[in-house]
Structures are given as C-alpha cells and as structure tokens.
C-alpha cells in the first residue's frame, strides 16, 4: 500500500537535507572566500601574468550559469579524464570556484576603495607588503566588502539547491523525494521554502552583526 501521510521519518529526511545544504554552503563559501580574496590581493599588487590569468578565469566563472558549470564538471570532466566524480565532489568543486569568482570581484572593489593615503602611511612607516595587507588593507577592505559579501552568501546558500539535479541529497532533493511519495507539493515545497528562508535570515542577521563590529570606527551618520 502506498504510504502518503507525513511521518517523523520525513522530518529526519528534511533535517538531513538541510544539514547537507548548510554543510555544502559553509564549506564552499569558506573555500571561495579564501581563493577569491587571495586572487584579489594578487590582482591588487599587479602581479604580472598570474593576475591576468586569474582575472580571466574568474570572469568566465562569474559570467556563466552555475548549472552549466555543474554539468560541465559532473558530466564533462569525467568524460575527459575517464574517471567518474562523485556528485558531492563535483558540487563542492563547482560551488567553491563559482563563489571564488564572485568574492574576487567584491574583494577587488573593496581593496580599491581603501585610500592611497593608507598605503602610503603604512609603507612610509616601514610595513612590509604582507603586514600592509594584514593590518591595513585587509581589515579596511573587509569593512567595505562585508555588506555585498553577506548578500552573496545568502545567494550562494540558495544556489546550492541546484546540486540536487546531479543527485546530491540536499534540502531540495529531500523535498523532491517527499513530494513524490506524499503527492502534496504545496505543503512540501512550502516547508522546504521556509527552511531555506530561516537559514538565509539567520545568515543575514549574523552578517549584520559582523558588519556593525567591523564598522565600529565609523559611527553612522545621524541624519
């Protein structure tokens, strides 16, 4: 007999799917953050060849759909290397690189927004390039970049839903499974939507708190 009602088991399935989505998001966003900002620093110091190479690669990633990138990695790369990739690996790779591309352009803008005077003061006082990035450029660029980064994070969290297409059992895939069994699409997709919303909202709140801390030195204008 077909079992069409909701059970406790379904809750566990959704919770597991949510955990996969959040884990995939957290991991790939972190990797993207490191790679993207690293590339931005390379670009900022006008490292010849490497800077241009990174810029071109990341621009390609930013200007093509994530789904296409996902298919390219999951179906295209194995055909090339004659070696299958697991869905989770392909998803992790694609989302990390895609996040890096968006982080890169935000970080470049953030670094450019730091005044020349800051670099000159630090250099005149003898700070090395590494010290300059760590103590002067990095923190100030981050204060400029944090708002767009929080926006990006919320977006990338939702983009993880695409990985369900290649068979990763994330929150969307869990919803899909549930929907097929219960045939109650409105209830299922509303529930899945609420879970994504809750995760994104939490992320925004955390981001805003972080932004307030980073911008503590710049009191808001009381206009």
């Amino acid at each position: 007999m077909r079992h069409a009602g909701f059970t406790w088991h379904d809750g566990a399935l959704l919770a597991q799917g949510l955990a996969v989505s959040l884990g995939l998001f957290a991991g790939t966003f972190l990797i993207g953050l490191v790679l993207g900002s690293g590339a931005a620093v390379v670009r900022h110091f006008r490292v010849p060849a490497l800077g241009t190479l990174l810029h071109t690669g990341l621009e390609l990633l930013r200007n093509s759909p994530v789904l296409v990138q996902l298919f390219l990695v999951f179906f295209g790369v194995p055909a090339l290397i004659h070696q299958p990739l697991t869905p989770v690996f392909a998803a992790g790779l694609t989302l990390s690189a895609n996040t890096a591309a968006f982080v890169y352009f935000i970080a470049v803008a953030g670094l450019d927004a730091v005044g020349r005077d800051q670099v000159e003061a630090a250099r005149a006082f003898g700070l090395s390039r590494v010290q300059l990035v760590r103590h002067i450029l990095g923190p100030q660029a981050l204060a400029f970049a944090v708002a767009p980064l929080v926006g990006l994070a919320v977006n990338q969290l939702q983009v993880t839903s695409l990985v369900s297409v290649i068979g990763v059992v994330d929150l969307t895939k869990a919803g899909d499974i549930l929907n097929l069994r219960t045939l109650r699409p409105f209830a299922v997709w509303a529930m899945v939507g609420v879970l994504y919303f809750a995760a994104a909202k939490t992320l925004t709140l955390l981001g805003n708190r972080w932004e307030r801390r980073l911008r503590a030195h710049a009191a808001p204008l009381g206009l």
Partner: protein
Amino acid sequence: MMAVEGVVKRFGAHTVLDGVSLTVAPGEVVTILGSSGSGKSTLIRCINGLEALDGGRITVDGLDVSDPRQLARARRLSATVFQMFNLYPHMTVLRNITLAPELVLRRPRDEVEAQAHALLASVGLAGKADSYPGQLSGGQRQRVGICRALAMNPRYLLLDEVTSALDPEMTAEVLAILGKLAARQSGGGGTTMLFVTHEVEFARRISTRIVFLDQGRLIVDLPTDQFFAADGGLAHPRIRQFLSKMAPAAPLAEIPA
C-alpha cells in the same frame, strides 16, 4: 645625515624636481619654503621612498632609498607626519601609534604602549587613547599623527605641510607642539626635522636653515637669519615676492621661543 644629490622627478612631461641637492645634518631643523606646486611635498615623498626617482640619489645615513633593502632600513630611521594625517581609521588612537614600532621595530608591546600613553599625554590627548580617529578634531588627529611618528624614535622627522589642512586655532595647537619639540632637539642628539610649511613666521623661529624651492629648483639654501636678511634671501626677487604675499603670522603666543 640625509643627503639629496641632484634629484630629478618627473610626472609625465612635467618636471617637478629639477636637480635638487640638499643635506640635512643631525640636529638641524631645516624648513623648505616655496609656493604650491614648487615640488616641496614631492621632495619629502622622494626621501621616504613614496616616489621613485628619475635621476640623482638620496641617502639617509648612507642608505640609498632607491634600493628596496636599504629603503626598508632607512624607513626605520625616519618618520613622516602627513598633510592629511593619514591615520588608520579602523584602529584606535593607541593602535595607530603602536602598530609600526611593534611590527617594524619589533619592540615589546608593553613598552610601546607605555611610550604611546606618555606621548599622548605630552600633546594633551591623555584621554583619547581608545578613541577612533573619526571621533577627533583635525588638530587632535594631527597631534596623534605627530605621536605616531615620534613613537618610532626617529632620527629624522619629515613633516609635510602638517598644518595646511587645519584652521588657525588648530594650527596653533600643532605648531605649539612642534615648537616644543624643536626647542628640545636643539640641544643636539635628538630628532632632526625636515619641515615643509607655509607658516613662514613659525619657520623663522624654529629652523636652523631655510631652503627655497621654485619650480622644482632649489634657489636658496641659507641659515635662517641670513635667509631673512636684506642682503641674504630677501635680495632674491622671487623670495621677496613670495614673502610679501604671505598672510600675517599665525598666533605665536603659545609657542615657546
């Protein structure tokens, strides 16, 4: 000794410094005068390595600033106070002062912080250590800028139009501090100052020597009293013209002689 030898600096087709030579010996307070665009600030920026030279040579205690390694060592001997303060806005006043001594001179944090507090107290900012630069007035910011430079215990202090962005009252605050500093240094062994300014009367009181830049050329280099003598600097028409156009002296009452 800081030695500038035949320095040439161009921005595109425009020659900003056209064979400038100047030496500043330990204990001297040398003022660079000249109208805007004469190359004064560029000269300071060449000495602390912020501009690459197109000709000539600059050495600080024998270290050639065109060589990156020697420049790094030269920068530990000098400190700059900037026209627009250039404080780090995301750091507290205290951290602004202690950052370079800790990172560049590798001095222990306790010692540097104690010095920073003492310096802040000496410029009347004892209570501002934990404020951010954005919470201070322009005059207070520049006083922090001076503390930041002095915390490097520099042999050479480079001052680039440090009062140009300040109103007369704040200018007086800052000049009072520099006046005290120059008076203390004249005993010898202390900080040597190279001072770009438009405050002619102040320059007259604190400088041991005054040089005059005009369109990228150093046209006069004289001890202060001779610079203002009728048969010295004033004999030069360009300098007479410059001095006659300067505004009356800033309030000097608070500046110790």
